């Protein structure tokens, strides 16, 4: 049986302590800059906060993983190198990286610190994953959310590193690390600036009938009726009118969250080492609820009991959940 580590999100020091106390095996977090893919206003850690967080987590047997999972623009690698230097100095247990230049720097400078390959690297074939393992010593790959469980099982047999899969949370999965939709509308890059649908470009407009429009850079992404559940203002979850669908439809994805609680035993059996919960941008309340629920489920499964997972639908986007490609390629 794999280790089935629970990898939990933390957007603030308080969320990190919450995740640790709720039973996380490892917590992932980032600095307050473009070096990570949740570069949101008011979120993330200063170096001093990270130092305290590492002390808190390590004292309780929990690991801290530092996300450096964006791509430095040409000629601007110093920010990423500096972040790696700081993380290494503070004693993080692993770096989560996407860019080969960042991976190479860490592999050369800090060979004793583990490298995990971010989902943002979009490495979904054994060949791609092996390339990162052989050239940069990557110890774990976070798989893109486009693979079925039989495919994961097969990949596991063909790669020399551990596998981490998402099990809960946001389900925006164009080709991860390659999506330029936000860049197209706002000029900011999800992959280099670390923010999809930057809050400074988002506006919610309430109409007289109680409907709400969500707008990004002046473009209407969706309009929710008075009683309709809402989603994030991301372009991939937008509802658009098109000549063949004038009533408007979800052209890419629906507002929906991934929830693999029922598939945990199958994932463990397929050789997945670690389960990742998405949501560094979410609150302590979310972290507490989701981490506790999955902690109990994983412990039940490890002990040979049937997992009784709490109902997490209230925390899902659009209050809808899916098992996505993990269940079937036809999920859309």
């Amino acid at each position, binding site marked *: 049986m794999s280790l089935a580590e629970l990898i939990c999100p933390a*957007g*603030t*020091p*308080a*969320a990190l*302590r919450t995740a640790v106390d709720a039973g996380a095996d490892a917590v992932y977090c980032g600095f307050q800059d473009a070096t990570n893919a949740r570069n*949101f*206003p*008011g*979120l993330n850690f200063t170096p001093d906060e990270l130092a305290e967080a590492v002390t808190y987590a390590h004292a309780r047997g929990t690991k801290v993983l530092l996300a450096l999972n964006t791509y430095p623009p040409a000629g601007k690698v110093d920010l990423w190198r500096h972040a790696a230097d700081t993380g290494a100095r503070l004693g993080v247990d692993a770096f989560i990286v996407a860019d080969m230049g960042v991976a190479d720097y860490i592999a050369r400078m800090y060979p004793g610190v583990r490298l995990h390959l971010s989902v943002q690297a979009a490495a979904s074939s054994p060949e791609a994953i092996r390339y990162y393992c052989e050239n940069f010593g990557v110890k774990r790959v976070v798989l893109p959310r486009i693979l079925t469980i039989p495919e994961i099982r097969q990949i596991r047999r063909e790669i020399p590193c551990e596998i981490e899969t998402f099990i809960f949370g946001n389900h925006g999965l164009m080709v991860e690390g390659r999506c330029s939709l936000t860049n197209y509308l706002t000029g900011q890059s999800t992959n280099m600036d670390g923010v999809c649908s*930057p*809050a*400074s470009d*988002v*506006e*919610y*407009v*309430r109409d*007289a009938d*109680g409907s*709400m429009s969500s707008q990004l850079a002046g473009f209407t992404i969706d309009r*929710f009726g*008075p*009683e*309709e*559940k*809402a*989603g*994030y203002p991301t372009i991939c979850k937008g509802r658009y009118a098109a000549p063949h669908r004038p009533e408007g439809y979800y052209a890419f994805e629906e*507002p929906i969250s991934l929830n693999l609680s029922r598939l945990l035993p199958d994932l463990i059996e397929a050789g997945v080492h670690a389960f990742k919960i998405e949501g560094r*941008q*979410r*609150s*302590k*309340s*979310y972290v*507490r*609820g989701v981490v506790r629920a999955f902690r109990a489920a994983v412990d039940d499964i490890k002990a040979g009991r049937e997992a009784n997972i709490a109902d997490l639908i*209230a*925390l*899902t*986007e*659009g*209050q809808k959940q899916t098992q996505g490609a993990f269940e079937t390629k036809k999920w859309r």
Partner: protein
Amino acid sequence: MIPTSEPTARLRPGEGAIARLACLVLQPVLTRVVRRVAARHPSLFARLGPHQATDFLIDPVELPFALHLRPDPQALVFRAVPRDTAPQVGATIRGRFLLLLELIDAEQDGDAAFFSRDLEISGDTEAVVRLRNALDDMDGSLAEEASAMFGTPGRAVLARLRRAYPDATKPREYA
């Protein structure tokens, strides 16, 4: 700051006078609470960044008044205002009072309340996101802290509010 958020008002007869009276009575309490919170949680202001100077309207839909907040550590503003005289603000956060209280105390998740449409925001979204993240990074319960400042009566009011929560009705029409 471009004022983007319109205060909304639909008052029942006599509500205006009640609102004004409630604001007068509440003001000393609010001032004490916000000063105390600011003194005990200075890191809150760093997360607010440039939005320390933003005016927020916190609009508990079932109460006869709203709350005007400017989280500027040099000149803190936290005051109850009747809806019909509420100032133009940078951002508005609207929902049931107890939901707002639970969001501040991290008992509820802001995104989930937004998805379910129980929480409504308008105006400067970045300001709201910063405020949310700043408040979420505070340990402990603000509600407990504030109620404890007023001893047994304070705690009794909070307990009563919490008991009322399951019965809290959906927002009434306010626009």
